């Protein structure tokens, strides 16, 4: 609908004329209240400061008591019935202590749970999100790529460790610890069979390949391998990777001059759909590339169709009317469809569009889809493109 500048102007005028609402309290009164609250907070903190060492001391005493009792119990294991009876009393006593400790722990856990709930940004909802943009100074992200069984599609999955970590080896030893490949119909990327020298600060990665078994079990080809490695290292801004070793992939991917520098393929011009192996399996965003995807409009149209593989489904309703307008780094996407509501399908669509838009170089998407909220996404304002896709957050 075209804008009516006169009408808008009058709304804007009226907004400017809304009265100033003033605080009638005196400055002294406001200051007093602030001071009281500050004092109250400091006292509370002091009490905590006293309570924590006291609690720690009490716990230590209980622990020492339990250890001593346990040693005592072992020493007297072969003693008389009378002693056994005493030990039995001790055991009962220990159980009583443990029970009281358990109750105390439960209370603490309940309090912690209440605290965590208050700290959470949003209320717990049942929706599944495939994108994550939580800023955390210690967050360590490991990007991985998983090939779907019997189909040439790859799922990028980000393993996020909020405790920091920073050791790729720990993750690469066996990625199957983090993802159930049977439940998800995925192939093991066998990253553990490769030898990595990762220098993110220098934007460089060396991969040594001398294990001839790599790629045989999971039926990888050299181009597939290039895709996996690209999905793993492109998010760190790495553009080239040096390959070495007697593995056939190294020769296959080197250029005519025998140069072993592998170009990292950026995730550009792709359409995102949803992959789900079985009805009760988790869902994942999956990038679909095609020579026909020359614009975001092409990608959005592509996202209306299911893939031939039945496990990969469309993310935009088939009846959707699409309109795309660009404004610098932002793209306005207008979708008209009777199927759009605040539900999981719409969340999937929003997330798939965000990532597809990213692959075409956009940083924000302004959605006009007939609703103002889809799950956690506030669509009344342009949505920033999140950083991590298909996150697995370690606790």
């Amino acid at each position, binding site marked *: 609908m075209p*804008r*009516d500048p006169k*009408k*808008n102007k009058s*709304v*804007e005028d*009226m*907004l*400017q*004329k*809304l*009265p*100033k*609402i*003033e*605080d009638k*309290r005196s*400055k002294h009164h*406001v*200051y007093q*209240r*602030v001071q009281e*609250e*500050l004092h109250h*907070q400091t006292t509370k903190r002091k009490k905590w400061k006293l309570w924590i060492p006291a609690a720690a001391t009490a716990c230590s005493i209980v622990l020492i008591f339990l250890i001593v009792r346990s040693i005592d119990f072992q020493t007297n294991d072969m003693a008389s019935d009378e002693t056994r009876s005493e030990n039995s009393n001790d055991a009962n006593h220990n159980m009583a202590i443990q029970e009281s400790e358990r109750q105390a722990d439960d209370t603490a856990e309940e309090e912690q749970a209440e605290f965590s*709930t*208050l700290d959470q*940004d*949003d*209320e717990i909802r049942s929706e599944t999100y495939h994108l994550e943009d939580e800023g955390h100074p210690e967050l360590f992200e490991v990007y991985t790529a998983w090939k779907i069984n019997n189909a040439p599609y790859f799922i990028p999955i980000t393993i996020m460790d909020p405790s920091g970590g920073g050791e790729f080896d720990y993750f690469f030893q066996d990625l199957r610890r983090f993802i159930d490949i049977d439940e998800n119909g995925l192939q093991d990327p066998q990253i553990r069979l490769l030898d990595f020298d990762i220098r993110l600060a220098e934007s460089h990665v060396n991969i040594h390949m001398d294990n001839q078994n790599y790629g045989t079990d999971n039926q990888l080809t050299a181009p597939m391998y290039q895709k996996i490695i690209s999905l793993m290292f492109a998010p760190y801004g790495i553009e080239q990777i040096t390959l070495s070793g007697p593995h056939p992939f190294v020769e296959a991917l080197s250029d005519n001059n025998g140069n072993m520098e592998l170009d990292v393929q950026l995730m550009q011009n792709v359409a995102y759909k949803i992959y789900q192996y079985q009805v009760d399996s988790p869902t994942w965003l999956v990038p679909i590339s095609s020579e026909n995807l020359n614009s975001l409009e092409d990608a959005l149209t592509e996202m209306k169709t299911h893939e031939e593989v039945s496990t990969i489904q469309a993310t935009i309703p088939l009846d959707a009317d699409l309109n795309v307008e660009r*404004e*610098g*780094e*932002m793209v*306005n996407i207008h979708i008209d469809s009777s199927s759009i509501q605040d539900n999981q399908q719409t969340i999937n669509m929003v997330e798939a569009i965000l990532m597809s838009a990213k692959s075409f170089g956009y940083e*924000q998407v*302004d959605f006009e889809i007939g609703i*103002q*909220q889809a799950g956690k996404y*506030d669509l*009344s*304002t*342009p949505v920033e493109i999140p950083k991590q896709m298909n996150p697995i957050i370690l606790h």
Partner: protein
Amino acid sequence: MKTTFDHLYDKYHQDLYHFIFYMVKNKEQTEDLLQDVYIRVLKSYEFFKGDSTEKTWLFSIARHVTFDHFRKVKRKRNRFLEFFNWEDEGEKLKANQPIPEEVAVLDDQMQQVYHCLDNCTPNQKQVVILRYLQGFNIKETAEVLNWTTSKVKTTQHRAIKELQKCMDVSTRKEDGNDAERSQKE
């Protein structure tokens, strides 16, 4: 601390009060939230680096405090609704805050604008308040919200559209009531 408080109070108190009031539309809550703003500001004032202006820094804190409040209210409401299993009814409940005297004396149309602000999302509302009631320019608004200027512009456009829609509906309703009244007469 008193000197810092005096400085901030003299320069920004009424503007901050005005901003928070229009966000929550309740004077008591505004007073509580403004107190939280002062506590956060006074605790971190020595760390203020001056990357932004003092004013935009203060408003960004006020905005965070207000959004934290909205989240708490929403969580409490959801728990309450879950407890009674009133989900469908609950979504229809609207905040029924008393109209302040300053607004009660305005004409119907101005009161409509005041009420229609509730039809905007919190993000739209904060843009409208900063831009039209506080007189911030696009760049300053973007700084307060930590957004890009294009995001501010788009959100403002959406908000005005929403307000206009709400005003049109209210006007149509009133016209309908007038016609009904004159028919009865």
